[in-house]
């Protein structure tokens, strides 16, 4: 039994302690906004926040996470899609297929929490998620828009 705090709610999960956080989030917690892309922390589709830090959940076993650590998924970033990053994403109509976008948004929100005003080099260095549709330039523009648009410290 492992206790995890996901989107503000502490729950016990009866799973193998080696289970990656991604699969507990998707299969036990039932939150499917966090995506499976590669399973080896390469693509970033599985990005969530752990204590505010953008983390790839597909290669992180839950026994590496303490019960009190705060896990936030795309569903918990804001109650209604109103996080500045989500608003900027909507304003710029960023997604194409959208599969990588929860991970992109969580990575971007994580970046802005650490660095509220990133320059192009910061964005290039920190946002290494894969998008096969090719939304990179809009992701970049939306991060800058979110940085301009007000508080990015929430979530």
């Amino acid at each position, binding site marked *: 039994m492992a206790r995890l705090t996901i989107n503000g709610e502490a729950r016990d999960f009866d799973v*193998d302690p080696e*289970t*990656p956080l991604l*699969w507990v989030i*998707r*299969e*036990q917690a*039932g*939150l*499917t*906004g*966090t*995506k*499976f*892309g*590669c*399973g*080896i922390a*390469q*693509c970033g*589709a599985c990005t969530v926040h752990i204590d505010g830090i953008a983390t790839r959940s597909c290669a992180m076993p839950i026994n590496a996470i303490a019960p009190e650590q705060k896990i936030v*998924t795309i*569903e918990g*970033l804001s109650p209604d*899609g109103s996080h500045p990053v*989500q608003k900027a*994403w*909507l*304003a*710029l*109509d*960023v*997604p*194409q*297929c*959208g*599969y*990588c*976008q*929860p991970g992109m*948004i969580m990575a971007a929100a994580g970046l802005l929490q650490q660095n509220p005003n990133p320059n192009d080099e910061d*964005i*290039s*260095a920190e*946002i*290494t*998620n*894969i*998008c*096969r*549709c*090719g*939304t*990179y*330039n*809009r*992701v*970049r*523009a939306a991060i800058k*828009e979110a940085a301009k648009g007000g508080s990015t410290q929430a979530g």
Partner: protein
Amino acid sequence: MTIATKVSRRNFIVGSAAAVGGFSLGFHIPFTPEALAQGATIPEVNAWVVIKPDETVVIRIARSEMGQGTLTGLAQLVAEELECDWSKVTTEYPSPGQNLARNRVWGNYSTGGSRGIRESHDYVRQGGAAAREMLVAAAAAEWKVPRSECSVSKGVITHNPSKRTTTYGKVAEAAAKQTPPGNIALKDPKNWTIAGKPLPRLDTADKLTGKQVYGADLKFPGMLNAAVRACPHFGGKVASFDAAAVSGMPGVKKIVKIDDTTVAVIADTWWRAKTALDALPVTWDEGPNKDVSTASIAEMLKAGLDANDAFVSTKVGDVQAQFSGGGKVVTATYAFPYQNHATMEPMNATALYTPDRCEVWVPTQNGESSLAVAAEAAGLPVQKCDVHKVHLGGGFGRRGNFQDYVRQAVLLAKEVPGTHVKLLWTREEDMLHGAYHPTTQCKMTGALDAQGNLTALHMRISGQSILATVRPEGMQGGMDPVVFQGLTASSPEGHLGYTIPNLVIDHAMRNPPIPPGFWRGVNLNQNAIYVESFMDELAHAAGVDPLEFRRKLMAKHPKHLAVLNAVAEGVGWDKAPPQGVHRGLAQIMGFGSYVAAAAEVSVTDGRLKIHRIVAATDPGHMVNPAQIERQVEGSFVYGLSASLYGECTVKNGRIEQENFDTYDVLRMAEMPAVETIILPSGGFWGGVGEPTIAVAAPAVLNALFAATGKRIRTLPLKNHDLA
């Protein structure tokens, strides 16, 4: 954020950040199960349109949304003729089973070849127009006035003499009983108010919150999950496996060999299925191709470059006479490797089987193909099966013709009748069992006269045919016409933009035992690299500027020339680039559209940086310039990923790359600025999802030559030292 949209009559220039433009129009009506249930009780006006009492307009979309924006574009075309309120529009997919039951009222479901809009624009607009006429006729009948005295705008019908009004929602039920009109004259695109506009996508909001459900996310009560492993050696099969070794592992329900090549574990959760499968001892019979390697395939193709037997697509004049006529003869040989589609969402399908019925939920580019495969795998008549389409986490050609995952899901569901089974592939399974962008080589031979004019060209393609394996009924007397994409003399799909007095284009078919498939852009990608790299080589051999060299050959191809000129002007070809920056050009026609690109690159200490790309597209008619711009930008990501990194190598008859650590793709740091110029010249309907991919690589390769003097003829670039 600034919007850089400049409209000068028919010439649209969209800046790289134009997405903000239509924000005020960005209403989104979530597509809820309640809305679905409600829709089921409301009679449709016709097959394309359902209007609810609350004025919600449901537009039915037959083609699949996989990121390319076709859902929004097709809805715009229907709404344009329907004269409804765009802010009330939502969409739904009619199922392939419903399509069959209704004599294919929604036409073709296949979503590939950049055909979603260009192949259905006429009948979807007719659908919208017919619904409009039935709605207005219903209002006129209720008012007992002539139809001719009524008008409609944004879903509000007005009886002009009396100024009485009603709405689509109020008359929809009566409209359903109206006799459908015959063919209706459609609007001239120049009068469009919804189509042709850069409207925001209809499917964005749920993609920002995690609410959008993809196939991999489906959940049903009592559902089981499955992981599969197929023999990685093409042509090989399962020799043995030891189910007892893992049958006691947590959550495991069944361990099955579903066919000669594939073993699977069904468990309560996918992670447990996958964990047990990883632990399952399996030995493979490597089959007849165990000695096939990248080197052996390259040798096989190389032999085709000078072979006597070849399928001739174009033969004009006498190339040999020119090659031996004393002019300058230039030759070059190119090669393009296998690529995997690598959609972000790995292949998956969910199936429910009973002896009486089979249903499948699947992200698919062709719901009707999915249905046919499901019925065959279920062993049931197609009428007892149906497929429910869900949005795709990328398609790129992998999820159209190839429905291997649907077949597997149904076979697994048959193991547990009455229970939903969700099959999800690992990334490794996805990489090892692709439908690979085929490998080709090309030998180009050109003759230049004393004035530097190109007098003859022989283009010999050697390599794999997709159709020979995938769709043999499409072959023409043994020849695969797809191999010649962009190279034909006159096809509206894509003709060569150069007039060359002596010209041979032929194909020596060499089919290695690696399964080929349609990969976004298909053979146009390789062909553009060969033609446009070689044009650059010829220009340099002739001592002529590459733009001028091309222009001389393009006098009879004004649309090709227009997009080339547009990028040359856009990049400032007539002015010197910034210090250390070098430029390259490319143009081609494919999927019915004319495209060109100009790239600016620099190379520092052997590291390539692509600074900027100017791209131009003439798709004829333009349905949504904001979506075209996204497709153009995305095309560079796809095309540059392949040219910089993409390579599936073969050893022991299997693919060596299993995940993104060895099959890298373009990421944010390398993404150039892209400036998109749309030149919609009207009069035809071209596709936009694919053609631009083809010019990405040659524009960059030509710029790379300008920067380094190195002519890269074998991709990907990661294998070359640029220092």
